[in-house]
């Protein structure tokens, strides 16, 4: 297959990996920061239980799209959206929707590790704390389960009461992942989770993503094409606020339809 078109109006789709049905359905989604439009006509379906990565050069709108999924963009003033974005069939931008309940169905990991200024254990059980859980056994079980899930348990089990800010960068990021999975979410949103980490910490996080696959629908925004290739089942390529090409990772990396995609994944621009 040869890549021909440089700048399409229509997204090029491939068959996506994954038979489990859709988790997120994005249709005709547009977004404006004030007068400036940041996302144009995004149409995509994200498969349940798989890892979908969103790649693209800086400023292409991939983080913006991710942050729309748990309505984190609500904090931005002058933000406006149109079109629909649905989780399991129900529109998350419908009026009257409970944003807090929506966010509780998702965990989010940010670009920089952002542990809270409290103990390691308190960090992990923060989602339970906001739900008002007081039962000590539940809290302890969750701490262990989440930390094991984030492959951090063995390193911190003896100092759960110490400040989370004393951990290394990689440990902090895994703590943030533990925090994200502690509330037992359906979806994990990861916004360039390895961009502030060294290669060894990065590979640990990647292994972790592999382990978490299947239990959660994972959507990961990344700058790093190798990472996208390594961890994801499906890949979406975005450019200047548009979804350019979307399909299973293998195809996007080895046989994209569009030349721009090919140029980007082979490192010729971006």
């Amino acid at each position, binding site marked *: 297959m040869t890549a021909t078109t440089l700048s399409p109006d229509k997204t090029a789709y491939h068959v996506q990996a994954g038979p489990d049905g859709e988790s997120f359905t994005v249709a005709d989604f547009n977004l404006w920061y004030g007068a400036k439009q940041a996302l144009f006509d995004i149409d995509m379906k994200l498969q349940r239980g798989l890892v979908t990565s969103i790649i693209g050069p800086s400023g292409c709108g991939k983080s913006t799209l991710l942050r729309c999924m748990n309505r984190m963009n609500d904090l931005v003033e002058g933000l406006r959206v149109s079109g629909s974005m649905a989780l399991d069939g129900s529109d998350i931008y419908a009026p009257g929707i409970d944003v*807090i309940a929506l*966010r509780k169905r998702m965990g*989010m990991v940010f670009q920089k590790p*952002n542990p809270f*200024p409290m103990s390691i254990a308190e960090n992990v059980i923060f989602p339970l704390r*906001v739900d008002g859980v007081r039962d000590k056994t539940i809290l302890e079980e969750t701490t262990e389960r989440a930390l094991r899930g984030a492959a951090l348990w063995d390193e911190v089990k003896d100092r759960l009461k110490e400040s989370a*800010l004393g951990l290394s*960068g990689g440990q*902090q990021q895994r703590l943030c992942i533990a925090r994200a999975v502690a509330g037992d979410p359906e979806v994990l949103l990861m916004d360039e989770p390895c961009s502030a980490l060294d290669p060894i910490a990065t590979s640990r996080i990647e292994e972790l993503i592999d382990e978490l696959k299947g239990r959660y629908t994972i959507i990961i925004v990344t700058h790093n094409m190798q990472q996208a290739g390594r961890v994801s089942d499906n890949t979406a390529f975005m450019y200047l606020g548009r979804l350019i090409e979307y399909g299973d990772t293998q195809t996007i990396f080895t046989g994209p339809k569009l030349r721009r995609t090919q140029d980007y994944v082979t490192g010729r621009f971006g």
Partner: protein
Amino acid sequence: MPGTTAEKQLADDGEALPERGRTRRERATDLAANGEPAQWLLGGALAVGLAMIVGLLGLIIWNGIVTFWPKPIEVVTLTTGAVIAGEPIRSEAYKVPADTLAALPVETRATIERNAGFANRTLYKVGNFDIYNDDFRWISDFEATARTQPAGQVYLERMEWGVAIGRITKIIADGRDVTGDRAAIAVAHDAARRRWDTIRHIERRRIGDINHEIERERLGLRKLALHSGGSSPAYEMAERQSTTHIAELGARYATLAAEAADLKKRNENSTLTFTEIGGVEKAHKLSEIVRFYAANEIGLVAKLRIYLSRWAEFLTEEPREANTEGGVLPAIFGTFTMTLLLVVIVAPFGVITALYLREYARQGPLVSAVRISVNNLAGVPAIVYGVFGLGFFAYILGGTIDQIFFPERLPNPTFGTGGLLWAALTLALLTVPVVIVATEEALASVPRSTREGALACGASKWQMIQRIVLPRAMPGIMTGLILAMARGAGEVAPLMLVGVVKLAPELPIDHHFPYIHLERSFMHLGFHIYDVGFQSRNSEAGKPMVFVTTLLLIALIFVMNITAIMVRNRLKRRFQGATF
């Protein structure tokens, strides 16, 4: 400037310079690009600032520390033949007035004229205000023919009329002459002072309690009369009960008064007679002399003991002699209570305001206007706050409270006049801009990523603020509170209008229900300084007290600040090690 000499030397050696003939165009350096002048300027500014602070603190601390140290008594013989005795306070050169000069002998006048008309004089604290009508006296050097420090001159601190200086001629203890018997004198003096304390306790505390109960009976009756009319059967019954109760109280009062009178009579039997240097003899009850010592005979240990006992008196006793003598306990207590109350009021008020402004309000011209107004509040003269506090808090708020809750006490105001609560509220208003600004800064400095992390975990906005933002901003908020506290504790002008008095009869906290009396007027160290320094009969007598009180006020603020800073640092330690 450092370095210049070395460079110059190098240049003189000629080795480091390019050879002549191959001259290069030297690139000029702009003065602004040269760091050194800026460093000197900034360092100089810092040095000037530090010098002023250290100078002021040093002056206060030195003067405050030496005030209570016992000084020797000098006896000066004057050219006129008169003799005076007193503590030398300080010396200075002064221009001798022409008429004084004219009356002097020729050789003295010639000496002074050689000195361009200046002569030295020394201020003596001669005491004995009741005899001389003055506590202090300037003696010029040319007036004095001899100065000695003879034994036998005694410095007496009296309950009334201030200090006396003279020679003790007779001491009578319980009717027995004990003159010269040191041990007996000490025992008798102690006993007399203890009796004096007991009398005061009876008069102030126990009789005070009875008066308090009588007043309560009266107010209860008055309330009943206002409520159900002065001729109802309920009122008449209460009146009968109250009359019997008051009669009982009256009997108890009589017993106590008799007890006090008995002690006073015993005190009459212990007296001290002294002769001042001019020969006038005067007798005092031993119980009315706080302490006395032979200033020129006592050793270092005795001096130290007097020094410490004066400090103890200063810190734990009530003032006497129009505040120029005695202690400042009520003022310490008032300052401390008011500052604490101020912090308790200003902290929630300021923090909540800042939280709303920073976290909830839509940022726009209105919020900016509010913010600018708040910042400008800090520039309003403090006395204006005092006027506002008096008019709004005391008269309007307090007056309304009186009419609703204390109608039986009218026309005497309860809350409708200056008091502790109104003073604290006024100062809270004065200091709230500081807290708001500091809190807003602290809230703004909580990173966005941390906030988003909390929200992404499903926290509501309030949960995020309460669990993440506020703890994180706490050190900054504490800094604001510390600044507010320091400002509030040192403020005097508005307090003069809203509740500070020269002498408060009762402390704002005592053993009468409801124990904390926020409506009472109180004493304050800052006002005490003003009062003693500028409102007393003799500013020279109050001067040492001004320094000591200032020292104490600074120490009190210092201690409160250190406490707050320690709390803040404990909070801060929790956030240490943050790498991002």
